């Protein structure tokens, strides 16, 4: 599926907050990064590592202090480029997106994005229904107030609000924060579904290694405004020591593999999921018997 065409490209992007005051802070330092079409990318980093700032550069909400951001080869801060179109093509779901719900009914709220795009009534209706279906909100809830829903449902409605704009790239900032394990699994499954069935490029920002390791095919680790690691999860999680030094943990199962290895078992270290680990351990035990 991924024919390796660059969809978003960052060239030497730096960002300074409050430049020229005593509160000046360099949030991004000279970042070079390419996101390819159809990828499922995870961005991970400690609080204050610059991941949220980076995310807001992808769709032009923040303008780099220096450097350029290209979408399909075009500078998104060029005068002739319509920011609205860019933001529609690159959908961004903020942390706790349910805090931005405001309409009287769920249907109206999801329709806000498509309406701003100037679509016809029919098209809007179709898109709203489609995206609510994707996130698992049934038609019986359409006319309810979004404030009557449970936390997990609210979040799904908010995500549908961005999905309804039919973006080519979908960026999600901590989409599972504050949800119970079931709500978390549901949301992650829906995101994966979006990736697989619609072929949308997904960028998932998170600090939960376990969440990310299972789904993404590429992992970018941010540290102090810089890209510390960039590779497949298996490659990245080999650097246990370095990751711990910058305040991140690898999935627990990876730790287990390291401990087994230390005790003399011949196990691979790049195991990321429980299912994989079960297989590895089974084969080990089988051989030793």
């Amino acid at each position, binding site marked *: 599926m991924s024919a390796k065409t660059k969809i978003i490209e960052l060239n030497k992007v730096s960002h300074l907050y409050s430049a020229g005051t005593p509160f000046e802070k360099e949030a991004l330092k000279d970042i070079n990064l390419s996101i390819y079409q159809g990828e499922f990318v995870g961005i991970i980093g400690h609080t204050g590592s610059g991941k949220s700032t980076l995310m807001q550069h992808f769709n032009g909400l923040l303008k780099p202090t220096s450097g350029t951001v290209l979408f399909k080869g075009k500078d998104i801060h060029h005068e002739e480029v319509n920011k609205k179109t860019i*933001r529609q093509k690159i959908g961004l779901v*903020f942390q706790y997106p349910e*805090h931005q719900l405001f309409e009287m009914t769920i249907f109206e709220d999801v329709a806000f994005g498509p309406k701003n795009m100037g679509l016809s009534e029919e098209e809007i209706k179709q898109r709203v229904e489609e995206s609510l279906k994707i996130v698992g909100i049934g038609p019986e809830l359409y006319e309810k107030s979004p404030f009557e829903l449970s936390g997990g449902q609210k979040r799904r409605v908010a995500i549908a609000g961005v999905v309804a704009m039919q973006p080519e790239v979908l960026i999600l900032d901590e989409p599972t924060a504050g949800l119970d394990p079931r709500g978390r699994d549901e949301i992650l499954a829906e995101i994966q579904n979006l990736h697989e069935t619609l072929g949308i490029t997904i960028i998932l920002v998170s600090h939960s290694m376990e969440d990310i390791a299972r789904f993404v095919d590429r992992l970018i680790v941010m540290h102090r405004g810089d890209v510390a690691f960039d590779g497949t999860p298996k490659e990245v999680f080999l650097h246990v020591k370095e990751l711990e030094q910058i305040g991140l943990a690898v999935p627990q199962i990876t730790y287990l593999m390291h401990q087994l290895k230390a005790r003399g078992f011949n196990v691979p270290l790049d195991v990321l999921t429980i299912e994989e680990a079960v297989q590895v351990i089974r084969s080990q035990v089988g051989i030793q018997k």
Partner: protein
Amino acid sequence: MLRNITIGQYYPVDSYIHNLDPRVKIMGTFVYIISLFLVPNFIGYGIVLLFLWMLIRISKVPFSYIVRGLKSIIMILIFTLGLNVFLTPGEHVLFQWKFIQVTGEGIYIALFMGVRLILLIMGSSLLTLTTSPIQLTDGIENLLSPFKKIGVPSHEIAMMMTIALRFIPILLEETDKIMKAQMARGADFESGGFIKRAKSLIPILIPLFISAFRRADELALAMEARCYRGGENRTRLKQLAMKKEDYKAIVIIGSLVIALVLLRMV
């Protein structure tokens, strides 16, 4: 975008003025403002200006920050100047058109008032620039505590001020986030006529109100969970205590007042 707004505008550096007791600074600012009204002529303003310039140098706050505070009163300043210039009666008439006349006295009084206003704002902005909001409310609480006997709830007033001040940056950040989230959904706050723009604020204001109520609720609950019950018998982490420097500061501000009083008598 909203990061540029500085309310409370504390300028965090370490200086003699920053380290003064907030009570001294609050009372000092009061005395300074009163002394401005004692000034009889422009020589007096010269003395005050010199005094203020000295304080600003000691406080290590860049001069541009102090001047920035003047922006907010520019309309009042123009209004005051205008009224005084055009409406002061006097003998030296420079210009007359129907009932409007410009007199020499008018210009003198306008300048006099203008300088007073500018010095007033510059002096009081030095207080907020060198005192953190927490210190400020601590100082106010302490200064108000003698009035407790006549039923002034000084602790509650200070607590409300502290919470209100604490919530300003939180709500600004929240507004910024909601604006960005709605912009990501294609909202447009900048184009269109007055009504369209006012309408475009709804997607910001409703979530903002909801979140303000939610936060207030959460805070009240958290305070109750920790058995908060007002000012009675509470001790503080940072006790206010007068130091040698504070007494020096009182002497310095006192000498300004004395100098101005002497000037008035001469």
